């Protein structure tokens, strides 16, 4: 009798503990689920906000250049590999501001010798594929390049063509990651994701200062989201009392150890260039 009572007493305690545990854990689960919904709602809201802010900052940065009308610059491209070998190319680049369409740019190859006089004309389009033509002096003909993808390395360098030219705001979607410091200045850190499915990048991290919206650094992530390259801009100068341009930009490839330096010289703004100089029909004559 005594034994039975003892057993039932133990059983009662056992059941009590079990039911309490179940109750407690179900409560915890439901509370944390509630909390999770709350945080996920908050997170969605925060994300939308970060996206809006990001887009605004990108647009503001783009606006800084508004009214530059046209620009010419000489570019010396220095290619370095991990063992310190070096190669050089030189280019002359002109760009024309377009209000209703993407900007137009003309790249004239000055060296290597066998490519001298070759000219690349690009009409950028914010929503569609860009148009590109190449004038080949040896053939005395203009060829239209209809590749839908500009992500390959430009003349063997670490720059893709899309890294070198001014970007259209709507080529990317944006997200403001945080406020940061770059070169001792307060800055924004933006994440931008290319809209073009053929891009070689999954995302880019862009640092621009809050003062003048100058880009100081871009981290490029490849298709598998690994850090591929970093681009640094150095020695910003102001031209025509308005437009900031770097004197050097350095692209480092983290995966191969190769590096390309662009040295800019002779910036000229508002040269009175017109669409005629940026027409595929005039391309042949532009280069002489």
């Amino acid at each position, binding site marked *: 009798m005594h034994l039975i009572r003892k057993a039932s007493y133990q059983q009662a305690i056992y059941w009590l503990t079990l039911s309490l545990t179940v109750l407690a854990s179900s409560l915890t689960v439901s509370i944390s689920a509630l909390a999770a919904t709350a945080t996920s709602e908050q997170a969605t809201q925060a994300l939308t906000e970060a996206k809006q802010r990001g887009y605004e900052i990108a647009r503001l940065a783009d606006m800084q250049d508004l009214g530059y009308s046209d620009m010419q610059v000489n570019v010396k491209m220095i*290619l370095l*590999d*991990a*063992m310190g*070998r*070096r*190669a050089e190319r030189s280019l002359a680049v002109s760009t024309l501001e377009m209000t209703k369409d993407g900007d137009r740019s003309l790249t004239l*190859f000055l060296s*290597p*010798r*066998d*490519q001298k006089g*070759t000219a*690349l004309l690009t009409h950028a389009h914010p929503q569609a594929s860009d148009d*590109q033509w*190449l004038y*080949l*002096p*040896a*053939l005395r*003909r*203009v*060829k*239209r*390049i*209809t*590749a*839908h*993808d*500009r*992500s*390959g*390395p*430009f*003349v*063997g*360098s670490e720059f*893709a*063509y899309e890294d070198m030219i001014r970007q259209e705001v709507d080529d990317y979607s944006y997200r403001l990651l945080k406020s940061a410091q770059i070169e001792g200045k307060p800055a924004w850190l933006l994440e931008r994701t290319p809209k073009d499915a*053929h*891009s*070689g990048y999954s995302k880019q991290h862009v640092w621009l200062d809050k003062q003048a919206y100058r880009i100081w650094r871009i981290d490029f992530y*490849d*298709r*598998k989201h*690994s850090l591929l390259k970093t681009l640094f801009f150095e020695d910003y100068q102001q031209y025509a009392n308005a437009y900031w341009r770097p004197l050097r930009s350095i692209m480092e490839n983290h*995966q*191969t*150890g190769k590096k390309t330096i662009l040295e800019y010289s002779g910036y000229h703004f508002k040269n009175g260039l017109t669409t005629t100089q940026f027409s595929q029909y005039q391309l042949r004559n532009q280069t002489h």
Partner: protein
Amino acid sequence: MLQNMLIRWLVGYPKTAFCLCLLLVAITCSGLSKLWISIDYQVYYADDDPYRLALKNLESQYGKTQNAYLVIQHKDPKANAVTAEALQALHKLTESAWQIPFSQRVTSVTNYKFIQAKGDDIKVAPLLDNPSSLSATEIETALQRLQQEPAVNQLLLSNDKTMAAVSVGLHLPDNPIAETRQVTSFIRKLLADFEQRYPQLHFFASGSVFADEVFAVATEQDLLTLIPLSYGVLIIILVILLRSTRAMLLVLSIVTLSVTIAFGIKGWFNPVISPVTAFAPSMIMIIAVADCIHLLNGFMYHRRQSLSHSAAIIETLRLTSRPVILTSVTTIIGFLGMNFSSSPAFHDLGNVVAIGVGAALLLALVMLPAWLLIKPIPVSPKQSVVSRFMPYLAEKLTQHPYFFLAASLLFSLLLIVGISQNKINETFIAFFDNSFEFRQNAEAIDQHLTGLHRIDYILPAAKAEGIFQPSYLQSLASFSHWLRQQPEVAHVETYSDIIKRLNQALHGDNPAKYHIPEKAELIAQYQLLYELSLPYGHDLNNRISFNHDATRMTVRLWLTDSAAILAFDQRVQRWLAEQAPNIVKAQQNLPSDTQGIGIDMMFAHIALNNIPAMYYGTLVALFLISFIIIAALRSLKVGSLGMLTNLLPITMAFGLWGWLSGQVGLSISVVASLTLGLVVDDTVHLLHRYLHARRQQGLSPAAALSTTLASSGVAIVKTSIVLAASFAVLAASHYTPNAQLGLLTAITIIFALIIDLLLLPPLLFLLDQRITQPSVIKELEHASHS
């Protein structure tokens, strides 16, 4: 004197001695935690190896050469691998391949950038980008055009269309231990997923990451299977020979601790374990067992002579420690001789085993007797079969010395003739037996699609921008044309093909225009046009140097052996010297060599370079060992006689190898050095005992021979059986170089036993009786004076 003092101390304080040994083990084994298995084939090559430097140089310019190769085949092997469904799978697989960690380039027929021109519009785009939207005829035309591309045919698509591949270029960091595994397991998961989605198709992979991985797998397999196997065999043999479980356990502990000390010390100095070093624990165990057997054999012998327990130990240490020390020193020298190898992996093996042998010697001489004193083991009074057989053998040998001499000489001569059959050669794929998935895949791909071996040639032009010169491109074109006619060649990738194709496309796709243009400017500008059209991961940076002064030609060879690869490379050099003197001249201005570059070339050269290196190593070790033995035996004649009979078993083993296989690769090339120290041991024990009988006991040659065989002969037979059986176990390795090393070592040890029992005694007997008797007597007098 010193010896007696040490023995007395040991007998007086066995527990202290035992604890000191344990302390040593504890100190050294802290290094064990530092050890890691390297899966990098680079462990085989010295840092300044010219072929390694050439590859490094190439990779710094053209990107890393590591790759993965994903293959699609229909489950029915005769069926087409480019049906609409298979193409869809290929397309998806190509897309997914960009997600492979460290991938840099991904190419397949579905994303191959085909050059098309319509008027002045140039389009460089895939023909099969969206295969599901294309009709059967469209696919058929696209495939026909693609198969005419040299960069596609026999690399991305097989001639008979039964296999299609995604080629993935990878850029792994240096010393990729975890990374290679990360890549291969990602690919395995990816392919398993595709197998499920496309049940009619078979997906498998090959490439350099899998080759690297298979080395690691082989190493791990060896560590996991060979060591337990060695233990198993040792336990069985020890129980049979010692007839005491406790003695067996004692020996096993000593052996295990020796390995622990060796690898602990290795951990401090050189923590990398390569496939070759994985072999070391088994070797140390085997050699340590031999030491223990000699000591225990002596101990049991003396116990049977009804000496007291501690007296037997003192007597054993007094008599046996000298030859055991001597043989350990010779073994250590033999293994240190491996430092002459041109491959650092073998330096490492030699050094670890040398340390292990030293540790085994110390433990056998201190720990073993200390333990015997603390806890005595029972000794069975029965004599073994071997012991009963020996007097009979001694009798026969002294009766018919000429017969035994002639018979064993004839036998060895027959074998030695086989040496001429040996060739320096290595078949990479045969490193791995058929149980390896890697080998099965490589062979399947080799049968249908393309070869596993890759050789790169860097072909410089005379100056910067020189690759645009038509004459240079003409040389490239005729070189690749010649290469494609060679029977070994599976595939050739060259820059000149791209220029030809561009010229054709820009001339309205006229096949007659598939040639090199006449003007450098035109070529340079065509290339620019092409480069501007190329997307990420399809650029020319892996083909041309960035200052346009050299291009890279990649040649794939069908599965073959190192001798064929070297012969092919030599033919290439000859052709270049005759047909493309401008390229050869430009090459002479470069720091790097003109020869083929790549892992396959490195493999082909290492066996070739290692043989002369090991030859010198063995000679030096032989010289040192002879010196020590002559000094220790204090007889120039007997000592040199012993050395001669030691060279014989090694030569015989290589002779037999010539008849059996004839391929001497990297691992076989170290056998001579490895076995030298081991086979010497038997002779040392025999001669030591014989001279002891003649000098100290003053026995006649016949009687001395009989005692020698009865005492040392028994120990020799026992240790030889242990050594040969345990090395033969290593032959069970699935990694052929280790298996062959084990097998040939076992053969050498058996031959050494035969020579030591059947050739050395009659020779010794005859020489002693007829020629050297006066000198031995002189030596006898000399010895008794000193």
